[in-house]
C-alpha cells in the first residue's frame, strides 16, 4: 500500500495539485485530453443525436477546435513553442468558439479548473500581441466611435423607446434602470420585446427608467472577443452614469449584458443589485404583482442562454471548485409553468448542458455560417420535443435562432419569454 511506511508521505509538491487557484499555464498544462469537454455529461445523454456539447468541435471536427485542442495551443503559445506565423489558421481557431462555456462546465466536473478563462485570456493575449481578427476590427472600431457593437450610429440608440412613457435617467433620478443593450437597440424586430419589458415593469408598479440615447454598450461582448480595455472603459462609463442617476437596481433582458454587469462589473467595484428581467418578473409574480389571466394553449420548450446559465458560475473570480454550475435556471421555467395553458417540454440539453444558440464570442459577427449551424442544431433539438415554440430570454439568442428557422423555412416559433407573458396578460 502506497501510504505511511515510516517515511515522509509523498504528497503533492505543487500546491495547485491540492488546492486550486487560477494559473493560466497550469490549467492549460493539466488538460488530460480526457475529452469530457466535448460531450454532454454521460448521465444526461438522452439521444445519440444530441450528445455533443461543444459546437466548435461538432462543426469543425478537428480537435484543435475543441477545448482540449485549445489548451494544447494555449500551452504552446505560452511556452513559445508555437507562433502566429507558424499557422495562418491559428487566429481562426482561437476565435471559432462561441465561448458558450459548455466545455468548461463539463471539464469542471472532473478536473475543477477554468479552461474557458484560458481561452478568453488567449484572445486578450493575441490582441496584446497585435494579432487582430479582421472580421472583428470594424465592429470594435464602431464600438469606439459609436458606443455599440451593432455597427449602428450613437444617435439611433434610443429609437427603440420612442413614444414609450418612461423615466429618462439622464434627466432625473431613479432607483431602477432598464439597460436595453446593443442588440435590442439596433435590431428593430426586437424593439417590441424591450418595450414590452419596460411596460411590464411599469404596470407592476416598478419605478423604472432608461438611459435612452445616452445608454452605451455594456462592454461584455468586447470582453468575450478579448478586448478587455474596451470592456473596462464601457463598464466604468456605465457605473458612473448609473451612480449619478441614483440607480440601485439594474435590470436587463439581455443575457450577455446581465452576465457582464452582474459578474464582470463586480470586479470593478459595482455594488448595484443586478437582475435579469426573468428574475424580476419571477419576483413580481411571486409577490402577486404580476398575474397571468389569459389561457395560452401552446406547447413550448425553453432555451437556456449560456450567459444566463452556466456562465455565471464560470466568471473570473466566481468559480468555486466543486460547487454546482448554477445559473438562472428555475425563474424562467417557473414563469412558463405558471402561464395557464402552456405546456413546457424540455429539450435533451438544458441548464448547465444547454446547447448554445451560436451567437456568442463574436461568432455571430465573424463566422455567420458557424453561428447558423449552431442555431440550426438547437432548432432541430427543439423540434424533436414536439414543441411549437422555443422560448428564450436573450435577444442574441432570439436573433440567432430566428435566423436559423428562417433559413430552413421551419415552422418553429422563436419567442422571447416576455412576449409569451404578454399573451397571458
Amino acid at each position, binding site marked *: *500500500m*502506497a*501510504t505511511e*511506511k515510516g517515511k515522509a*508521505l*509523498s504528497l*503533492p*509538491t*505543487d500546491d495547485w*495539485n*491540492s*488546492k*486550486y487557484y487560477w494559473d493560466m499555464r497550469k490549467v492549460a*498544462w*493539466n488538460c*488530460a*485530453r*480526457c*475529452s*469530457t469537454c*466535448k*460531450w454532454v*455529461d*454521460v*448521465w*444526461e*445523454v*438522452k*439521444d*445519440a443525436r444530441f*450528445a455533443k456539447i461543444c459546437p466548435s468541435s461538432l462543426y469543425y*471536427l*478537428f*480537435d*484543435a477546435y*475543441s477545448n*482540449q*485542442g485549445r489548451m*494544447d*495551443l494555449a500551452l*504552446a503559445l505560452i511556452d513559445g*513553442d*508555437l507562433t502566429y506565423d*507558424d*499557422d495562418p*489558421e*491559428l487566429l481562426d*481557431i482561437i476565435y471559432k468558439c462561441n465561448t458558450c462555456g459548455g466545455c468548461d*462546465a*463539463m471539464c*469542471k*466536473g*472532473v*478536473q*475543477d479548473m477554468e479552461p474557458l478563462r484560458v481561452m478568453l485570456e488567449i484572445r486578450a493575449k493575441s490582441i496584446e500581441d497585435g494579432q487582430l481578427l479582421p472580421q472583428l476590427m470594424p465592429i470594435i472600431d464602431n464600438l469606439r466611435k459609436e458606443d455599440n457593437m451593432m455597427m449602428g450610429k450613437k444617435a439611433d440608440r434610443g429609437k427603440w423607446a420612442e413614444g414609450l412613457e418612461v423615466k429618462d435617467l439622464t434627466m432625473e433620478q431613479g432607483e431602477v434602470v432598464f439597460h436595453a443593450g446593443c442588440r435590442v437597440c439596433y435590431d428593430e424586430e426586437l424593439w417590441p420585446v424591450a418595450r414590452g419589458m419596460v411596460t411590464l415593469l411599469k404596470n407592476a408598479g416598478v419605478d423604472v427608467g432608461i438611459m435612452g440615447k445616452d445608454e452605451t454598450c455594456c462592454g461584455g461582448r468586447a470582453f468575450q472577443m478579448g478586448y478587455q480595455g474596451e470592456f473596462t472603459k464601457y463598464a466604468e462609463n456605465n457605473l458612473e452614469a448609473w451612480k449619478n442617476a441614483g440607480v440601485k437596481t439594474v435590470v436587463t433582458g439581455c443575457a450577455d449584458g446581465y452576465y457582464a454587469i452582474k459578474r464582470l462589473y463586480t470586479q470593478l467595484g459595482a455594488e448595484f443589485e443586478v437582475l435579469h428581467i426573468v428574475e424580476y418578473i419571477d419576483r413580481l409574480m411571486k409577490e402577486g404583482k404580476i398575474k397571468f389571466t389569459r389561457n395560452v394553449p401552446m406547447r413550448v420548450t425553453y432555451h437556456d442562454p449560456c450567459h444566463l446559465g452556466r456562465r455565471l458560475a464560470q466568471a473570473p473570480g466566481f468559480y468555486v*471548485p*466543486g460547487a*454546482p*454550475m448554477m445559473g438562472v435556471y428555475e425563474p424562467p421555467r417557473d414563469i412558463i409553468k405558471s402561464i395557464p395553458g402552456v405546456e413546457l417540454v424540455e429539450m435533451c440539453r438544458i441548464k*448547465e448542458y444547454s446547447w448554445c444558440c451560436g451567437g456568442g464570442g463574436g461568432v455571430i459577427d465573424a463566422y455567420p455560417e458557424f453561428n447558423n449551424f449552431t442555431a440550426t442544431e438547437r432548432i432541430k433539438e427543439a423540434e424533436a420535443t414536439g414543441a411549437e415554440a422555443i422560448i428564450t430570454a436573450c435577444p442574441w439568442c432570439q436573433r440567432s435562432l430566428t435566423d436559423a428557422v428562417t433559413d430552413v423555412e421551419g415552422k418553429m416559433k422563436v419567442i422571447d419569454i416576455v412576449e409569451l407573458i404578454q399573451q397571458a396578460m
Partner: protein
Amino acid sequence: MPLGDEKHKLIYKELVNVLGFDYVADGAAIVRAYSRDMFAVSVLRRKRGPEFIVLPGNTEDVQRIVQLANRYKFPFSVMSGGWMLPLMGAAKQYWCIIDFKRMNGLKIDEKNMCAVIEPSVTHAQVQAEAMKVGLYNGIPLVGAHMSALANHAWHGWHGTAYRSGFSTRNILGMELVLPDGELLTTGSLASPEAGSFWGEGPGPDLRNLRKGIVGDDGSLGIITRMTIKLHPWPGPRFLPTEGVRPQKRCQLPTNRFKWYFINYPTEKALIDAMYEIGKAEIGGSMERFDPQRMAYEYAKSRQEYWQLFNERYWQSYPNTIGICLWGFASERQLKYEEKVLEQIIEETGGKLWPDEAYQKFVPYVANSRTRSIWGPRWCRIGGSMQTGWLMMDTLDSVLDYFPTVWEHMNRYTPPYLEGQGDSAWVLTFDFCHFAGADNAGPFEKQDEQIKGVLGEAMEQIGIDTKNSMATFEVATTPVNVTGPAFANFHIPLAKIKKAIDPNNVSNPTRFIDMDAIARAEQEKAKSD
C-alpha cells in the same frame, strides 16, 4: 519532423484528392492538438505531433488512405475517443492520424439485441438509444464518452462486465480495413446478407486477429464497423438524475436495483466471498472498490480529495465488495437475489457499510457503474496517473498480485503520490471466471516525476516478463520485447504482420516493432 518537404507536400496533395480540403490538415496548430495527453510518455513527447490529420467519412475513404500510405510509405494510426496517445501518437516522420469524427453511424437491432457502430460513436450514445428499447451495453469506467468500438476492441473494463462479460467477448462482427487496404469481415458479416448477429465463423474465428486482451493498437488493421452485443436493461429509458454538475446524483429504481457494500477483514476473505457470489450467478456488477478510487470518484474537487485523505474517510473502508443486484426479469428476481446475497454475506463474515457512507456513495458514484461519469477524475489527483500493475487472470491470482504490487509501489512512492490506503481495484468478469486488477498510481505531471515513473514501468516490465505475468505493461509493450517470456508468440505474430502489412505502415513500433525484429535478425545473421 520535416514539415513541408517534397514528400510531405505530395502526401498532402494525395490525401486532399481522396478526402477534399476540408478533411485534411497539416497546419502546425491543428496537428498540435494531437500531440499530448496525461500519460507519461506523451507528456514527455508533447512537442512531437503528427504531420497529417485526416477525417475519413466512410470505410472506402479509409481504404483509400491506407492504399496511399502503402504507395507513399507513410505511417498512420487511428483515433476515435482520443485518449491513449502513447499507443497512437506520432512516432515517425510523415505520420498521419486518421481521426474518425465523421464516422459516427449507429444502428440498434432490437430483435437481435445488438448495435452496429462506427468508430466515433460513444458508449453514452449507444446506451441512450439502447435504453429506449430496454437494452443496454457495458460501460468502461474510464468514461462513457469514449468510443464504444475502440473500447470493445482494445481493453474495456466495463462496470457491468461481471454479468455482461469482458468487452471483447461482446464483439459479434467486425469490418476491418487491413494494413494493405483490403477489406475483411468477420463472423456472420462474412456471409452476404447474413447480418451481424453471430460472432463465430464461418471458418476460423478472426476476431482475435485483434489481440485477445488489449487489442493490437490498430497495427493489424483498422476496424471501421463493429457489431456489439446488447443486454437486457431493467431500468427506465433515461437515468433519473438530480442536482447540478458536478454535484449530480442518480437514483436507480429501487424495485429493480440494489447496491450492497460489504467489508471483509482480509483480501482472501473478500476474494472467497466474490467466488461464492459468482457461483450463485446473482448480480449485475461486482468489483472491489479501493479507497483511492472511492475518494477520487467521490471528491468534487482536488481540495476535497486531499481533505478526504487527511480525514482517512475512505481508508476506513478497505476490502470492500460493491455489488449491484439487478432485477433483470422482475422485482421478484431482485428479492430472491437479495436473500441469496444476504446469506452469502453471513456465511463469509462480511459486514455491510454504515448507512451514512452508503448514502454518500451510491447515488453519487456507484450508480455511475451503469453509465460511467466520474472516471476521468483519476487524472486530477496529480495531473497524471500510471495504470500500473494491471493484471487479467483468475480471480484468486489477485491474492498473489496484491503483495507484489504493494511492495513495488512502496519502492516507487515517490514519484507516486500517496494513495488513500490502497489503490488496488478488482473487477470481475463472467461471474468471476476471470478477473482484472489495477493498481493505479497518481503522480505529479512534471518531467522529473514522469522520468521516475517510466523507470518504474521498465522495471515492472522486467518483473512481469520474468514471472510470465499477463499484466497491462506486458500487453502494451511491443511483443518482440515480451514474446520470449511467453512462448515466443512474437514469432508467428511477426509473420502475420509481415504478410498483411508488408510496408510496416500500420501504427509501426506499436504492438510489434518490425524494425527491431529486422535489426535482431540482421545481427543474428551476422553472428551466425
